[in-house]
């Protein structure tokens, strides 16, 4: 209890310290007219103004919907591809160039490429999918390849059925790899999805809010939208960690 209180105080203290530093640097930059930096209080005021608007929440909902749909599709397809390439060398050899290509091309290049053929409101979903898909795929494949064959051999000899071997040996071996890839993938999905929104500007999205605020030189609004993106990212990460590392995972296990 005492340790927890100490940890929380230390975290809160460090955040306050960085906000103070932001305030000092911002005040200095603004007074010397070097460049404009919105101060923490201005950002907070703008953030409160934003959250009062229904259009802001519509943008948040739309971005979440698009990015999460791409993410979920990537998890499902990544799982299938990972299983296939972990079990079949032929599939792995055939499919490997796709994963290499996706991993080596910069996300911005993919966004521009996608923009050639795909409607701008679908691009965030597609880009989130594209960034997460190889992460899940490779981790599931790695998990499958790390299954201890001696355990599988022992279980088979001692009378375990194939289904029981999958349930008791293979799935528990893959699970930590899959879990970590889902948590990492969610962060990637969010960041790449918002980047796609900023570039392609689909109407009524967080990325479009950010892009428009920048075009209108509304500095405080730019900071407020970035703050929203950070809050949503932390929120998503903690929700998935709670379910995946906490209750849900224990039940599955």
């Amino acid at each position, binding site marked *: 209890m005492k340790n927890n209180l100490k940890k929380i105080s230390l975290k809160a203290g460090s955040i306050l310290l960085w906000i103070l530093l932001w305030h000092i640097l911002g005040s200095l930059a603004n007074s010397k007219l070097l460049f404009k930096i919105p101060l923490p209080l201005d950002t907070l005021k703008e953030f409160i103004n934003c959250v009062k608007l229904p259009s802001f929440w519509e943008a948040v909902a739309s971005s979440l919907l698009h990015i999460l749909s791409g993410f979920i599709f990537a998890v499902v397809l990544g799982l299938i591809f990972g299983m296939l390439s972990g079990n079949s060398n032929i599939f792995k050899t055939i499919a490997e160039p796709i994963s290499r290509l996706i991993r080596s091309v910069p996300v911005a290049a993919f966004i521009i490429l996608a923009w050639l053929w795909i409607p701008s409101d679908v691009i965030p979903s597609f880009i989130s999918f594209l960034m997460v898909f190889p992460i899940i795929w490779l981790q599931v494949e790695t998990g499958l390849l790390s299954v201890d064959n001696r*355990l599988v*051999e022992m279980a088979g*000899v*001692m009378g375990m059925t194939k289904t029981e071997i999958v349930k008791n040996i293979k799935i528990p*071996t893959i699970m930590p790899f899959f879990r970590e890839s889902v948590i990492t993938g969610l962060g990637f999905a969010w960041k790449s999805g918002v980047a796609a929104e900023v570039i392609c500007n689909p109407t009524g999205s967080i990325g479009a809010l950010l892009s428009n605020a920048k075009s209108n030189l509304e500095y405080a609004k730019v900071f407020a939208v970035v703050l929203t993106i950070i809050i949503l990212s932390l929120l998503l990460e903690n929700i998935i960690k709670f379910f995946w590392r906490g209750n849900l995972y224990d039940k599955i296990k």
Partner: protein
Amino acid sequence: MIKLNNIGFSYEKTEVLKDFSLQISKKDRICLFGESGSGKTTILRLILGLETPLKGEIQKAENLKPAVVFQEDRLIPFKSVLENITLFGADEETALLYLERLGLKDYANKMPSDLSGGMSRRVALVRALSNQFDYLVLDEPFTGLDQENIDTAANLINEVLGEKPLILVTHSKAEAELLNCTFEELV
């Protein structure tokens, strides 16, 4: 019950078995004895169906269920000691009783990573003995055990085994004698 007729087996270019024959009948307790590389473990793997002979044939009565202690403990690392035993159909009562006999009752709910080498070996033995089987296969079953634990484990094996066949691989003639085995020398 199990018959190996003129078996030939090689790992790539290294010939391990040549014209090897063995017959295991009910009540037989056979110890495969010989130097490293003489093919003892290979014979066990052939009997268990984990390898296919290059020459000769293996005849086995249908639906024979083995219980095995491999050269390595092969405990499932993410299952508790008790789960490692009961996953294969053993009832919990028998598992706990045998664990107690081998001095491991307090470790039933521990994970394999919490066990020493000798403890893991004893759990592997309990796993084999707690489950229903038609014949027992033991590959160096007493590795890492002190004499007191070897004696206790041998007593339990003798008791559970009854008249079922045993195929044992060991480097120690004394251990084979504890299990009342006849020797099958491999060159």
